[in-house]
């Protein structure tokens, strides 16, 4: 809880400082857009946090985004799939990807880093193959479907909550329940800390791990669909590049430990929000955009190291008490 408080204060500070320096930050249009981006990136943040809690990692998310995005457009525009069938196929593909990752990691005992690094490479190629290496989009069609990403619920004062943010909220709540109230969540947390303990309790640890990769890939696939609907375009060679790193950064900033066994969904939500608000502020405040990376990097470092320092301080306090 303390952990979350710290980054929550960080988020609020960034918002307050940006607002003071440029009140346009609170402009309904800007709020809408920022929430939309939080929603889009938040989806993969939630996905990867399951894998991180299992003490794994998934580097393939960005490529999964490109691949499902490319597939969605191709199925709808080139192969005349119906919308439900196309969505179903894309999610089905991400499911298969997750299962393959999970099997390679649990059955062949390959390292998650390597399996998903290979995934990163392979799915990127497949996305380029599927599209003939060309940017593709829906053009002016599928406006109805695109509402999924572009629609919003109006609020008083000109404000509105974009659908992707609502999707993100709903998924977050489901994730919270899954993590804290169900057998699966409990086993996942236990397994992230001590896999032997879980195995020796007669639990099928492999299945728990496998499911975490499936969740992560499914979230990647969903994000691929949402990003594509939002942007109306897939660049097979570049869409989603490095997104896995943003997702991991958000999760870690939000208190997920790469050692496994630790992580809160609220933390991930705040972590994602910090990263998105930061990039928004950087442009709003006319900070040269080449400093964006540096600022993000420094904020992550400060976030995680304060956490370490606070923990040390608290434990030294405890001793004194």
């Amino acid at each position: 809880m303390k952990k979350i408080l710290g980054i929550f204060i960080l988020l609020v500070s960034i918002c307050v400082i940006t607002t003071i320096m440029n009140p346009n930050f609170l402009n309904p249009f800007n709020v809408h857009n920022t929430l939309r981006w939080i929603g889009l990136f938040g989806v993969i943040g939630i996905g990867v946090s399951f894998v991180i809690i299992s003490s794994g990692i998934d580097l393939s998310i960005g490529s999964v985004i490109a691949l499902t995005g490319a597939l969605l457009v191709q199925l709808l525009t080139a192969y005349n799939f119906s919308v439900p069938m196309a969505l179903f196929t894309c999610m089905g593909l991400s499911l298969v990807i997750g299962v393959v990752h999970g099997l390679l990691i649990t059955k062949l005992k390959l390292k998650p880093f390597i399996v998903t690094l290979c995934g990163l490479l392979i799915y990127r190629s497949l996305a380029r193959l599927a599209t003939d290496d060309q940017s593709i989009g829906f053009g002016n069609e599928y406006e109805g479907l695109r509402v999924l990403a572009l629609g919003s619920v109006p609020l008083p004062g000109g404000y509105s909550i974009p659908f992707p943010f609502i999707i993100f909220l709903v998924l977050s709540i489901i994730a919270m329940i899954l993590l804290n109230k169900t057998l699966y969540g409990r086993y996942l947390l236990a397994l992230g800390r001590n896999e032997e303990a879980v195995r020796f309790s007669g639990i099928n640890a492999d299945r728990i791990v496998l499911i975490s990769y499936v969740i992560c890939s499914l979230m990647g696939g969903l994000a691929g669909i949402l990003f594509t609907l939002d942007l109306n375009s897939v660049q097979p060679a570049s869409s989603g590049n490095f997104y896995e790193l943003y997702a991991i950064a958000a999760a870690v900033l939000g208190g997920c430990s790469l050692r496994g066994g630790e992580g809160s969904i609220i933390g991930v939500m705040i972590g994602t929000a910090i990263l998105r608000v930061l990039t928004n502020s950087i442009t709003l405040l006319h900070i040269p955009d080449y400093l964006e990376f540096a600022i993000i990097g420094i904020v992550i470092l400060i976030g995680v190291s304060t956490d370490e320092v606070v923990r040390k301080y608290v434990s030294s306090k405890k001793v004194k008490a």
Partner: protein
Amino acid sequence: GGSESDTAGNGDTSTEKRIKVAYVTNGIDPFWNIAEAGALAGAKEFNVDCEVLMPPNGLADQQRMIETLLANGIQGVAVSPIDAESQASFLKKVAGMTNMITQDSDAPGSDRLCFIGMNNYTAGRQAGELIKKALPDGGEIVIFVGRLEQLNAQQRRQGVIDELMDRPVATLETMQVEQNDTPIVGEKFTVLTTLTDGFDRPKAKANAENAMVTYENLDAMVGLFAYNIPSCIEAVKSANRLNDIKLISFDEADGTLQGITDGYVQGTISQQPFEYGRLSVKVMAALVRGEETGIPENKFIEVQSKVVEKENVEEFWTELKKLKGQG
């Protein structure tokens, strides 16, 4: 990127609130540095504030930046869409909120007030003509490019191919993009393949090296992006084949211009990016102020691409250096 024009103290005494416009590129590239210089020069000339933004991470980044500009109350945006066709509806929304023009790459369905640029397909054909001039008896050609998913790359490539195959001039609408899986064989010329490098320089150089090994009779290399020919030069130089492989380039990287000066690059097609920047700011300033903009009926302000060859390279380069403030 992201620099603002420093207009403080330039004697602006009017009480008019400073006009804020923005120039948004499609990525980070030397080409855009020149355009940026043009935009900033234009800002000074036409007395406005101009912000130049270069999205490092592609399309999503570009849209985010434009949204933020809008939130910030920007009065004019000149954008180079990354995926013009797909982004049309987004840009339409932008056009509804501010004065929007496109530059470098057009988005016809987007309600943009005008397009400033050149015809990349025509430029491709110009490059094709340079090849024909260098290889009157025909030959085998490999094309190099960063990513084929970009429209300008596809248009340039198709222009080169159509010219070499002696096909009739197509328009951007009728142009057919050829697949890249088999060599395209014409009467005199064969376009062997198009190699992509994902903007990775070592890959670009390795591609050139591999092409020389794979295709023993390779006669010419065409680089569609600014850095491609400089990378090829490094490879061809180390193979000691500068005298036998013809190099045809786009844009105005220093390495390319040096190559033309030294005689081992046949020529380059310059898009005059400085003009893109300056003109964009000029038009936006006029739009905001409600002045005469000079936008023609067809909404297309064409910046002529310029063929740079040995004869005119010195003059061109001197001018360029001056524009970039290095002169």
